[in-house]
């Protein structure tokens, strides 16, 4: 139960801080117990960041903090001052999709799309430190992101395809990825 002031009304309790989200500085006021997830979705209306448990178990809410994947449901908004936050809304440059966004769309790696933002950002962080990861390295990096639709396969293939394209190739998906095996 929250403490009430002398007049029976709740005390003013919001903190007012400056956050840097997707390269833009923004001022925001919110209750200090709010998680980064809540601040992003409720106060900045960046609803591209999803939630599946709010307990740090599913990976849906992953965002990048200074380039590293962080579960935004476990991070406090107040602790984010001075950090660079990237959400899925910040991945495309203008109308040009990030190669990962492009390959996820091409291969149907986003079925219901709900786990997609967290996976895209986690994969982006991986590719920035390891530009040509092996299948096992991708699996390891994404092991904390649950997906119930795809069986992960199209996701792994989309990360590999994006990595190949980012390395400068004109890579196309394998025929079996699109049509199945002969």
């Amino acid at each position, binding site marked *: *139960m*929250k403490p009430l002031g002398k007049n*029976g009304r709740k005390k003013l309790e919001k903190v007012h801080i400056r956050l840097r989200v997707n390269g833009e500085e923004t001022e925001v006021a919110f*209750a200090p117990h709010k998680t980064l997830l809540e601040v992003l979705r409720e106060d900045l*209306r*960046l*609803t*591209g*960041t*999803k*939630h*599946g*448990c*709010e*307990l740090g*178990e*599913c990976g*849906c809410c992953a965002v990048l903090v200074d380039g590293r994947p962080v579960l935004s449901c476990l991070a406090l908004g107040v602790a984010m001052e001075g950090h660079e936050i990237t959400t*899925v*809304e910040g*991945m495309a440059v203008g109308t040009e*999709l990030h190669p990962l*966004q*492009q390959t*996820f*769309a*091409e*291969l*149907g*790696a*986003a*079925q*219901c*799309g*709900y*786990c*997609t*933002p967290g996976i*895209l950002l986690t994969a982006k962080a991986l590719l920035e430190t390891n530009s040509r990861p092996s299948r096992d390295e991708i*699996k*390891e990096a994404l*092991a*904390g*992101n*649950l*997906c*119930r*639709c*795809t*069986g*992960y*396969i*199209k996701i792994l293939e989309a990360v590999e395809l994006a990595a190949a394209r980012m390395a400068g190739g004109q890579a196309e998906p394998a*025929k079996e*990825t*699109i*049509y*199945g*095996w*002969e």
Partner: protein
Amino acid sequence: MAGNNGGKRGLRVVGKPFVKVDAKAKCIGELKYADDLFLPRMLHTKLLRSTVPHARIISIDVSKAKAYPGVHAALTGADLPPITYGALPVSEDEYPLAIGKVRMVGDPVAAIAAVDEDVATEALDLIDVQYEPLPVVTSIQDAYSMPEPRIHEYGELGNIHRRQVYEFGSVEAGFAEADHVREDITFYEGSTHLALEQHASLAQFSHDGKLTLWTSTQDMHYLHRHLAKVLEMPASHIRVIATPNGGGFGGKCDPFNHEIVVCKLAMVTGRPVKICLTREEVFYCHRGRHPVLMSTKTGYKKDGSITAMHHRTILDGGAYGGHGVASTFYTGILQPTTYTLPNYRFEAVRVFTNKAPCGPKRGHGTPQPRWAQEIQMDKIADHLGLDPAEIRKQHAIAPNSITANWIRIGTLSLRQCIDKVVAGSGWKDKFRKLPHGKGIGIACSAYMTGTQTPIYYNKLPHSGVQLKLDRSGGVCVFCGSAEIGQGSDSILAYIVAEVLGIDPFDIRVVTGDTDLTPVDLGSYSSRVTLMTGNAAIEAAERVRHMLREAVSAKLEVPGERLSFADRRVFDSQNPDKGVSFVDAVCLAEEKYGTLGTTGSYKPPAAPGKYKGSTIGPSPAFSCTAAIAEVEVHPETGIVVVPRVWIAHDIGQAINPVLAVGQIEGCVYMGLGEALMEEMTYRGNRNLVHKFPSFLEYKSPTTLEMCDVITYLVEEPDANGPFGAKEVGQGPQLPVPPAIANAIYDAVGVRVDEIPLTPDKVLKAIRAKAKGQEGRYGPSVFPTCPMPPAMVVPTPFQGGDGKALEREPAVSKK
């Protein structure tokens, strides 16, 4: 090229891997799911849920909560009309908020609407509920031995909800013909959908007296009807918008109490009201896979042909009916659709227990009996010394046949599917030849493409599509289907684009809105592509006819010579002579006035005429063969599945990359159910869920997921749009039994109980090492009084699809 059947058939869009119409919105975080919606002055709702599994409610006092600063309304069951609702008309047994008693931990008792979720949560603590506990029914065994106290008054017998007994042909005669008869008792544990999106709903009541609900639902149409009933409002004053579902898998099919509650709160407060369930609450909403205990007694000949099957199932239904009566039928009624089965007796019982209600999860009621038959087939093949792939191939049901229970099968390339996985996996070099600890197993299945009967009786179309075209050349498709990630919006665009010769991205798709879109029954039963697709073809062909007539008059070319392709309408004998699609639309608008067409679809009648024969028939059946490879650690019992080969007869892939994705998703969900997923409760601790969280309810991550080698087999079916059949559910069915059969190949033990967890595998290995039967699984099948069977002569006996009079009626004459 495999999977490019469309190209071979001269199709330009169908069969090609076009990007989904909503894929980019999903990848840039633009798509709005229900909880992403915010309205000015919006209030937030929390539900107070029962902490006891079974009790009478003595009193509920919400006065303190109501007075709490920031609270705008507090509701209990007394604030709503005492009207029940539920997914099926035969089991409308739920209240939006409990009245009189609670039947499970998690039953909603009161609701708060407040300025934010924190205030609403704090106010819940101020509600005082007094319960008088009642004895608790924890299991099938309890339900059989405890007719009182009844969880519901309307069940058939004490806590037995429903019993179904059918005999098609004569199992006695069939067993007499058999060389061998074996009975296997097996168990398939319940599991849950675990969609990543938690259920969310937002209601708004406007001052003109109309109500709008945005909600994560798969079945908007049925929900619409339930809202009208429970809120006592004309349905025409209620608008339900199915927001894109963040995963469904059957878990968002039922009408839910929280959906009705936010509507009522919006009506009481005059403000928009939103709810988003916590993950724990989603576990208690459930409606997932029923735990099913099965006894399967099968007569077979030396060649492996089946002469008769007596299949009995008991479903632990949980606290409410939901879709349970249908689930009960599905634990047996599709059993005759995979292998030839001349005589079949099916007895099913569903019981009520004080746990989260079960219902439809991917495969709805059929993965359990498929598991039972497929592991038994493996034992039969082993006993006869036959190859389990060959035995399946030999006795696979023939295409264009009618089963013993009067289900009509159209195309069915099960033999071709078996050939694909046998060749691809190197089966012949591996089966019974791999080193100890490694194994390979096969299983098959068939599944329906939509059900022939709607949930409530009516003769109306199952699916409707409207098309709007105007002088801009713009084409808009309206359909009441719900996009749950399977790509149903895209399928509409692909099909209309194919018929009109334009690009799918020229088309706007509007779906899932009862005010704007014609009725479609929803995303369940693998019905959407077939039914919305056929409706879309009809609507598109009607408008194409108008365009053709208008262009024919303008160009002075006979209409039948005109082709539609590449955004043009042109003379097929002189392709340079033509008009652009935009001009064709303008000409048609000139000729006919404002352009709009409709299309609708209703499945063909089924040949069965007996009571209950409407469940099971489908316009088309898909089929699947799967081979799993396993590694079993003999000292820990840990099972690893490196690879699954799977071939699925989809009729025609409308989009191959989406079809392959559905199959991979099916393998994944089957793998999870096979190895780790289980909905279990603490019987001695108030029957709470053992682990209602993502962390402890185990599901496969990238690290447990196997490789999948997918083969699309395309044998177009006359009833499918461009020949398409289902792909979203059927391919899950053979995965768990293929893994169980592979475990036997690896270490020579049978685990007849899902999930195949290491403890069970190890117990079977140890039993075998001690010289006992190398098996883990149930050995007792409890019985309860059953009504006489409905006896239906089969097509093979020259029956007419009707039932004989029941035996007691005959003896009275």
